[in-house]
């Protein structure tokens, strides 16, 4: 008997090699950035450069450089000074309150009270309600004949015209807090959850003082969040014009005349030089404030990062 021819053993004619990632091609991924980058450059960055230029010339037809004259004119403008003062005063009152109270709410919810998630929903809800919708109720509350005065009169307090007296800033602060505390609270809750549990437990062995643990451990870990919440509240405090406008219209009481009102009125005259100078000043001031906040945070929270 003849043995059948066995098939030839197949020959591997390629070398096995480790799989390799394709070479990185930066330009392919950066191509997808272009729509956004183009938009940002065209709508924000380049016009801002033009505005820098506008703030240094006398008018858009003659285009002569006048140095800092526009800025001098701006700082001699009564309306701008009032608006800047009011906005600054408002931010100085509202921002620290927004940070502290939001931290308080976050700690309250962290304390394992019952119905925690429902409370979170309640505290967050004002954020989702359009300001324009609840403005009617705010008017009912803070009108001269309104609910607040009725309530206070029970304690013998003289009626106050909330929106047309120096108390107006207080009303807007309340509105601001109502709207923004929820957002800040969520940020603080996330950051409280990031504090290492072991550290808190170890500390519990040493001390029974809740206050000690809060100041020496939690606050340290919270410091980047405190910085961010401060910046965020600062930005939002510039947005408070919405509430003021919806409550009191285009021409509010003097104490509520905000920078946005100033911008609106200057837009009516189309005084480009003044507008540009105001925008540049605000941009610079904002940059300085943010830089200072970063430096403070860098000093305070350095030892817990990384």
């Amino acid at each position: 008997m003849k043995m059948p021819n066995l098939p030839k053993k197949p020959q591997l004619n390629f070398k096995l090699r480790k799989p390799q990632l394709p070479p990185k091609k930066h330009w392919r991924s950066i191509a997808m950035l272009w729509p956004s980058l183009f938009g940002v450059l065209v709508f924000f960055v380049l016009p801002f450069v033009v505005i820098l230029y506008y703030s240094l010339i006398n008018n858009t037809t003659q285009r002569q450089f006048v140095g800092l004259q526009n800025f001098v004119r701006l700082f001699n403008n009564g309306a701008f000074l009032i608006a800047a003062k009011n906005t600054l005063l408002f931010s100085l009152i509202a921002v620290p309150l927004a940070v502290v109270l939001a931290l308080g709410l976050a700690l309250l919810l962290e304390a394992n009270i019952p119905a925690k998630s429902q409370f979170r929903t309640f505290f967050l809800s004002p954020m989702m309600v359009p300001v324009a919708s609840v403005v009617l109720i705010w008017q009912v509350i803070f009108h001269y004949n309104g609910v607040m005065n009725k309530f206070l009169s029970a304690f013998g307090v003289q009626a106050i015209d909330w929106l047309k007296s120096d108390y107006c800033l207080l009303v807007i602060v309340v509105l601001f807090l109502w709207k923004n505390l929820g957002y800040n609270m969520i940020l603080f809750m996330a950051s409280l959850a990031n504090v290492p549990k072991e550290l808190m437990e170890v500390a519990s062995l040493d001390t029974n003082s809740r206050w000690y643990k809060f100041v020496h451990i939690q606050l340290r870990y919270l410091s980047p969040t405190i910085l961010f919440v401060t910046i965020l509240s600062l930005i939002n405090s510039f947005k408070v014009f919405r509430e003021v406008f919806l409550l009191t219209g285009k021409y509010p009481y003097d104490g509520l005349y905000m920078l946005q009102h100033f911008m609106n009125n200057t837009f009516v005259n189309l005084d480009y030089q003044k507008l540009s100078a105001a925008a540049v000043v605000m941009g610079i001031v904002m940059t300085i404030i943010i830089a200072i906040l970063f430096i403070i945070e860098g000093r305070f929270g350095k030892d817990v990062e990384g």
Partner: protein
Amino acid sequence: MNRFKERLPRGLGQRFPAFAKHGRKYALMTLLTLLAGFFAVLFLLPTVLTITNSFMSESELSANYGKIFSSLAGSGSTYVADTVNLKFIPDMVTFKQYWTVLLQSPEYLFKFWNSVILVVPIVLGQLAVAALASYSLMRYRGRFRDVIFFMYVILMLMPYQVMLVPNYLVAEWTHLLNTRWSIILPGIFTPFSVFLLTKFMRRIPKALIEAALLDGATEWQLFTKVCLPQCRSALYSVAILSFIDYWNMVEQPIILLPNETLQPLSVYLSTINSGEVGVAFAVATIYMIPSLLLFLHGEEYLVEGITHSGSVKG
């Protein structure tokens, strides 16, 4: 601790041993819960009142708030109370205001439509642009990455008033002033959504991306088949956050869209306050509905979105 136990009523500790043991803790918890409840009532009050008051009849409203809204007092025959009553539950539920808004006076619906037609393109456009940009900010590791990202952060942190003049200038140059595009186009390129989505994209495990690349995925496939599905909840939270912001807008329409027939309801609502109050309450409630629905449906996404916006550093 001991001192506190002594102060407790005697029967309570005997009846509930747990209370005797943890008495102080319970007392503290009750106190904290009451505090939270108090704040919750304060936070919910304006919203709830707006909704319930929208079901009150015009005469009931004028009986309650006649002193405040002058238009009501002027309507003659109705009874105007001397004091203001803050009322939660209407005496008689009526849908008359809604009937008026929805069927008899179409101007409110037009304004509502204006809001929709401004906000929806902005949100969708933002998602598209920001998804592409954040993907490439995640993939691209070249020299300029940090510079570009820093630029977005700085722009994000600028108050709107700084960017208003640039927006106005561009709108004027392109002859888009007083059209919807003057608000939509800058809205689409808002740096905030790029910033937020980039932070989500960077959390995609590197192994996943490398595995896809080994299987021969192109950049586009990597983007659409791997990264986008991973970021689905992130896209949703960006959408919610930018929706609220633009649904609320007031500054932009006043400056860039002086044409009142095109203005959104958020601006218009403040002007009808002095008019028919009952209708104003109804319109206000209708205006709340889309954002409240989004909130109830996507609260988890919203919280996640806020959480990740929480630090400026990359």
